[in-house]
């Protein structure tokens, strides 16, 4: 995995911030969550379908 740098994101017109504390500028060499997501998308590409992932309930599309 390449080393990556996270900068303080400011993607939209309004700065993204926590209502309580804005996280400081962070430098990361890696992100477990992003690695996992990218791997899942790669697997989707190979299988041609979206799996149910390891969430709470397979096939459950209701978000409550």
């Amino acid at each position: 995995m390449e080393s990556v740098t996270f900068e303080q994101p400011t993607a939209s017109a309004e700065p993204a911030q926590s209502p309580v504390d804005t996280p400081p500028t962070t430098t990361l060499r890696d992100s477990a969550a992003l690695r996992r997501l990218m791997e899942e998308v790669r697997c989707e590409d190979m299988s041609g379908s979206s799996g149910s992932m390891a969430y709470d309930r397979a096939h459950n599309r209701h978000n409550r």
Partner: protein
Amino acid sequence: MRIDTVLLKVTSRCNIDCSYCYVYHQGDTSWQRMPKHMSLVTVDGVLTQLATLYEDQQHPFAVVLHGGEPLLLPRNILEALLQGLAECLPAACSRAIQTNGTLIDDDLLELCLRTNTTLSVSLDGPADVNDAFRIAFSGEGTYARAAAGIDRIRRHPQASRIFTGALCVVDPHSNARRVYGVFKSLGVPSVDFLFKDGNYAKLPPGKSAIESTEYGRWLAAAWDCYINDPDPPRIRVLDDLGRLLLGGASVKEGCGQTMYGIAVIDTDGAITKNDTLKSTYDGADRFESTWSIYTDRLSEIASSPEFVRYSELQYPTSPVCRACSLLSVCGGGMPLTRWHPETGLANPSVYCADYKLVIGHIQETLRNYR
């Protein structure tokens, strides 16, 4: 239309009284006319219908026990339902209970294990955040009881087979880092952060204006915690948004543009629309046709024009949404958040500005990551 999810409203009552609940506090009154819980006769009818649905569509679907509080269902009926589901459906049809966590006991855990049923617990964060909204009828907060329920599941030797995660309804004025930290400390394997229900007639609690971004900023802060966590749990909504931005697919309604087949069976056996529509106006989750598990076949209902029209509500019809470059990610949000008393659902979500903010925030992270 294929059914992906069958929500069983096994009880119409709850043992706690969350102030934001779409079942009891958003204007819908149908719960007052419903049987308090499913009877054994209705359970028999449900089992027959679900077995037939699987035969007809030959594709798995999820069955979720919901309420009210589903664990108010008398234990003998719950046992008959879960045992029946385990016997009449293949393992690929997942069975889950969405509970407030206050009524979990060891016998329930054994029943879940025996019937391959999972538990997800609703909790809104640390005690001070949770207890501002999720309160008992006595007025006391419910955090301690729900956290004890989670602890009881986690102490079970086979907890990983039973416990799937938590649902957290966001208080945008809470500290996202603290909320994230509580779920980490409770050892919750997955969390779904949900925005509170609201629409153009009644803005969601904590949102000051249509253009305001309290929820978007909160979720962006949660995203920052998530991507910096060396051992992150699953955060469903963030994963869905991230995967969609990476060119993948979402797994639940409210994000992306996949149309899902969601059917609800009420305590009397009536078949209704997505129950979240209750938050718009009284009776919004009712079909014009009066369908019931006693008289109608689920696969035939699912292929009827009325059911297809209902499912298509998931597609936003507002020209603003149709022209928006982010539509493939936000999907227009939950239909209930698009509702206006004069224009119906033909509007952007009241959370449009929040979605733009958080999606932009995630996009920026991904740009830097690549």
